[in-house]
């Protein structure tokens, strides 16, 4: 799934560009306090039909990545550079009407809070019909029939009646289903889900995750899932991109990220999470300190101030030189100055402790 050349943003545009290819994407915002560098040099690609999980803490740039793909950053006053190729089309240079035509048809997005995409004033059925009519030339009756089918499809009980309900008359899980139905109504090629289950209870979350997987299998949709929950990632993702301080710090297939993580930040995340399925040592081993401010990023490696291993890098490179995202093994990229053998040794140590071995 990952082509190292393209990941580094060096490849020339080629006809065999993957379905989604982000090349050297940077996003910044001018604020009163200074320039917020929300994204810097993000390059990644995704094959059709796969699910990519983007993980990171608040301020890591995961949501901005999604907003940039959807063409929403300019409207928020952000400055975008780099390229985003979706199915052979470059998105960052499109006019706003052109990207609007793609939004909701080629690509769609679902959010943490369903009320952010449902209008409280209109019946849910009418809102979905509207989404159909905005992109396709079909009659209102046909659109309504299709809407009803979709509501049944996403598991709304008694859809015949609920089609005329207002958003506030539905429960949170039900609204999430409506929003997913609305996002999928025009069979988008790409679905971006930004924390789609964070506001939901676990049993409802389970329903929604099953629904997204089932619909993905059925329609062959490519999914980008933005989440902070490493359990959900393990459950649904094919590939994982770990973000920190506005850049990708580790990218790879899901099994690789969990079995052989190499970036100290990824290791820190895995050591920070309590486990539901096993007894852990009394104290967790969290990453120390706080995430960096995107206005005032540290020089050198952005993770250095919280990293336990930067003293092992000769010459103090972590303090002065920004590391590159480089391949470490097939389908696995890491942004870290540590030598590969050192990273693997550290990773093994940490994973042994996580598996229950004494320190």
């Amino acid at each position: 799934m990952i082509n190292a050349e393209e990941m580094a943003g060096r490849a020339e545009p080629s006809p065999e560009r993957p379905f989604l290819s982000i090349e050297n994407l940077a996003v910044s915002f001018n604020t009163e306090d200074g320039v917020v560098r929300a994204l810097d040099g993000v390059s990644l690609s995704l094959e059709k039909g796969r699910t990519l999980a983007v993980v990171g803490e608040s301020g890591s740039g995961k949501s901005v990545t999604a907003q940039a793909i959807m063409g929403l950053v300019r409207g928020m006053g952000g400055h975008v550079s780099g390229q985003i190729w979706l199915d052979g089309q470059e998105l960052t240079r499109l006019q706003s009407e052109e990207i609007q035509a793609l939004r909701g048809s080629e690509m769609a997005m679902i959010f943490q809070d369903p009320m952010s995409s449902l209008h409280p004033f209109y019946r849910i059925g009418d809102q979905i019909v509207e989404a159909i009519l905005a992109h396709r030339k079909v009659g209102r009756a046909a659109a309504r029939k299709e809407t009803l089918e979709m509501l049944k499809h996403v598991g709304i009980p008694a859809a015949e009646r609920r089609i005329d309900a207002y958003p506030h008359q539905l429960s949170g899980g039900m609204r999430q289903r409506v929003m997913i139905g609305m996002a999928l109504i025009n069979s988008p090629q790409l679905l971006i889900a930004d924390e789609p289950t964070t506001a939901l209870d676990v049993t409802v979350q389970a329903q929604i995750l099953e629904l997204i997987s089932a619909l993905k299998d059925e329609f062959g949709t490519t999914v980008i899932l933005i989440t902070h929950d490493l359990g959900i990632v393990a459950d649904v993702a094919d590939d994982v991109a770990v973000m920190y301080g506005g850049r990708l710090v580790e990218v790879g297939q899901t099994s690789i990220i969990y079995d052989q993580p190499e970036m100290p930040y990824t290791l820190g995340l895995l050591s920070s999470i309590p486990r539901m399925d096993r007894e852990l040592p009394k104290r967790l081993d969290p990453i120390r300190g706080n995430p960096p401010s995107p206005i005032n990023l540290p020089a050198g490696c952005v993770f250095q101030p919280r990293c336990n291993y930067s003293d092992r890098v000769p010459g103090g490179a972590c303090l002065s030189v920004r590391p590159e995202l480089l391949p470490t093994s097939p389908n696995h990229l890491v942004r870290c100055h540590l030598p590969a053998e050192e990273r693997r040794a550290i990773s093994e140590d940490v994973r042994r402790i996580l598996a229950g071995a004494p320190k």
Partner: protein
Amino acid sequence: MTAAVEREILRVTDLRTYFPVRSRGLLPRVVGQVKAVDGISLSLNTGETLGLVGESGSGKTTAARSILRLIKPTGGQIELDGTQIANLSQAQLRPIRRKAQMIFQDPYNALNPRHTVGGIISAPFRIQGVEPPGGVKAAVQELMERVGLNPEHYNRYPNEFSGGQRQRIGVARAIALRPKLIVCDEPVSALDVSIQAQILNLLKDLQEEYEIAYLFVAHDLAVVRQISHRVAVMYLGHIVETAPRKTIYSAPLHPYTHSLLSAVPVPDPRIQLTRERIVLQGDVPSPIDPPSGCVFRTRCFQAQPRCASEVPPLVEVAPDHLVACHFPITVDEVAARARAGQIEVPAAEAPVAPVEAPHFVEPGPPHA
């Protein structure tokens, strides 16, 4: 009295908190009741953590607030360190409050933005009229140091701190008077994972140092496993199962506990691949009109006719392991049924017509 009884700090018996549902209009009438907490009993020893888990609407937050008398309960007893507090007046409660404190979920809203950190953390001293040896400022700075804040930031305002640091301020305020009990309502759910782990470690350290008992209310089952000694599972106002930590996670008996545990994805793709998920249908029923008999029966894969007519009592099936179910089921039996494809949850008899949103009056005292 035995030593074990003497160490008990909190005993809640048959606690009930109902909220009236009023009709709309000029002269609202009480037309029903939301039974947010409907007869729960629990106890807590010094230095112990009881995790109270459940989904939204289960009544766990109402239970926690009722126990601290932030909401007046409708009925039942609350014994805090030997004093019955369920029926005390606010004035009578004030001296009791130094024994029990609370940490809130949202560190952004729990702190007054116009007060300095020093003012916030010293408030308990002022309110209780306590003059710590060495003066208030020294005591506050010592507290700040203890929870991992820089004491020099005494005069800063909450907006100058990150979410994790604000939660540390909340913790410092809660431990200021050396309470015997702290009720933590989702204290880490608004925090990033690395910060969440820091706060969990801090809470554990403070517990060991000061022998504080925690009533830890949370929906995140992994977090609860990390911090709790015992766990109680709530559903629709009732405790359906309670057991020591290891038992609840490895040998639960209530079908709802099984469903809840199976729904949480585990951060390990290989394990996740082999897990069977019990997907519950529908939503939690309305607490205005809960199902007859067992409240979980409408979504339960074990439900039988008896469950509709008879309320299952919470009975002790093993030491410290209590279950309220007519047909408890072991992990092995659930796995066997899942393999045979027999975990069928009947489709919920959901109200088909959209429910008119009731006009709630909360969280005022229900008897006002």
